[in-house]
């Protein structure tokens, strides 16, 4: 489990979800869900609406705590850690509906994310302004690099709230990049994004996985995107892992079809 000695080998388990359970009142949203995400992969997480995909993301990233089960990241138990501590472990997420900070500029949305900013301690602003200023310059440089990468540089000083839906999705991805993450959970990165932007998004994700070794786990309903981008694909249904396999295996599995069509398909056939 050493990450310090160069690049870790692919195939090693990075994120491990073990037997998670979460109830909302009488509804069991996550029902003994177990799966692993390996290093070096872009893993797709699909399933019909209400399968518990977003709830699972919320549990992994510390927004809600599970009723039972454990989440391990790089071998550490991160169950029930607060969200900002999980962020410190270089595990980031985006939201299904982008949650930018609307009354801040695009670049400050990015600069905010940088970790270990000394200027975030109030006394440093008063007592060590030079130090804070130098660090701000560094952070700004990095933010501009990220903006160049996601091709939003022309909107640098625009309010984030004024961006289009697709641009906000790109900004969400950009914010995770500012964190220099090891793993990113993307919640429907392609929803509401037009074809051109989508191509850019797919290109970006592939590039980041290949060149920077960032591991992705993404929820997506657009099957084209999933089939093109993801391997393996995990299928969830009713809070459980239904199956896991290559895109082709998933496509040809009858259980998956049943899950999506709610059993009517099976009934019609039988």
């Amino acid at each position, binding site marked *: 489990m050493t990450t310090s000695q160069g690049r870790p080998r692919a195939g090693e388990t990075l994120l491990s979800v073990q037997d998670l359970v979460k109830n909302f009142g009488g509804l069991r949203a996550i029902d003994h869900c177990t799966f692993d995400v390996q290093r070096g992969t872009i893993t797709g997480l699909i399933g019909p609406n209400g399968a518990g995909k977003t709830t699972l993301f919320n549990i992994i*990233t510390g*927004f809600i705590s599970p009723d039972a089960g454990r989440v391990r990241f790089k071998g550490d138990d991160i169950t029930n850690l*607060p*969200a*900002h501590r999980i*962020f*410190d472990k270089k595990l*980031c*997420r985006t*939201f299904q509906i982008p*949650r*930018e*900070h*609307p*009354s*801040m*500029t695009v670049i*400050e949305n990015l*600069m*905010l*994310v940088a*970790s270990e*900013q*000394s*200027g*975030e*301690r*109030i006394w*440093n*602003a*008063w007592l060590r*302004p030079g130090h*804070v*200023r130098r660090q*701000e*310059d560094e952070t*700004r440089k990095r933010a501009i690099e990220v903006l160049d990468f996601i091709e939003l540089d022309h909107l640098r*000083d625009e*309010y984030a709230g004024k961006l289009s839906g697709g641009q906000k999705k790109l900004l969400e991805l950009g*914010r995770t990049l500012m*964190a220099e993450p090891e793993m990113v959970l993307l919640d429907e990165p392609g929803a509401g994004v037009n074809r051109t932007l989508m191509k850019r998004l797919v290109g970006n994700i592939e590039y980041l996985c290949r060149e920077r070794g960032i591991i992705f786990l993404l929820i997506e309903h657009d099957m084209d995107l999933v089939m093109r981008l993801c391997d393996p694909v995990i299928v969830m249904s009713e809070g459980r892992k239904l199956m896991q396999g290559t895109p082709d295996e998933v496509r040809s599995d009858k259980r998956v079809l049943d899950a999506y069509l709610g059993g009517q398909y099976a009934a019609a056939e039988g």
Partner: protein
Amino acid sequence: MDQALVAKSVFLAVPLLLLGLKLVPLRWALRIPVALVGAFVLALIISNLLPSGKLSYLVSFSIMAGIYAILTLGLNTQWGFTGHLNFGIAGFFAVGAFTSALFTTAAPTGVMAQYTQQAFGFEAPFLIGILAAAIVSGFVAFLIAIPVLRLRMDFLAIATIGIAEIIRLIFQNERWLANGPQPLRGIPRPLHCLFDEPSCAPGPLATLLQPLEPRDYIYFYLCVVTVLLALTYLLVETATRSPWGRVLRAVRDEEQSAAMNGKNITSFRIQSFVVGAAVMGLGGGLYAHYAVTIDYSHFNPLFATFIVWVMLMLGGSGNNKGAILGAFIIWGVWSGTAFLTGMIEPTLAQISQDLPARSAYLRWLLVAILLAGIVLYRPQGLIAEEKVVSRFLAKTGIGRGRRKQAREEEAETAS
């Protein structure tokens, strides 16, 4: 020229100088002398034009407006930058005022002890008193924050207004603490002896103060208030326009997202609440030393909470300059309506015999209409929040900084 007027002008020049240093759009090398000369000339003109009574009124008006400006800066840190809907300003104002009073007065002895009870009295200097006011108020805010900041918006407002009332009732009923329902008297005014017997002032200062009377003390206190207001403004502005303030705005905008970006939102919410409350406590301390005699009734929600809210809404939530501007304007409106209701009293008497006695409420009506107008027609306030939060950037620095940077970059590309 009248010597007293010259002396008064010297004191009046101090706030004008501070204002000039902030507003004159020149390089510092020019700005300082221009502001200095301008302040003295303006002070001389004002003190010569206005009759003595009006001049004193202007000074006492500015002192109260300055104290309110400090309260508004405190609220701005909480509401403007972090979105805490704090309706308990009166509570922190009271804590600050009573803390500074207790720290700077002497515990009564002998016969006096029968009339005045107080928990302690350290006879500490003024500066220690107001520092203690800020610290104790901040500490009280910290204790309150732990349970109360789990609430958001309306629920936080309800909880904080309740806490402010509890604090006021404690000061009203606990006689041992700060003389209970009776007023706490004799809060010392800093350096008062300069005006009582100018001989206690060193050398040239004595000749300056010679023509002034004890009641002219307010001219000096105006300087104290404005210097502390300027200092508070500098500290709060530096903090809120830094990466720290950026996190606050992020928390205000979208809390969960800020958490997901690695910010400990509970900690930041508490920090801003405590800093805001400490500033309010400082305002309370300044008020106590100005009023000399304070009691629980000074800290009612109308005068100590809601008027501060109107000030911030008018001036501009999220902008510290706006907060100060709003405080002065609303305090002007409030003081002005006193004359207004006085003028229309005969008319009111013709409508009904009862009305003149109730004319004081007309003032609140006017302030309320003003608030409604602000919210409807200019919700961002007179000076809107600025787009960029952090000013800790060399490149986007304002004015000369940017030009200098550009020159340096040019030189780099040229070489």
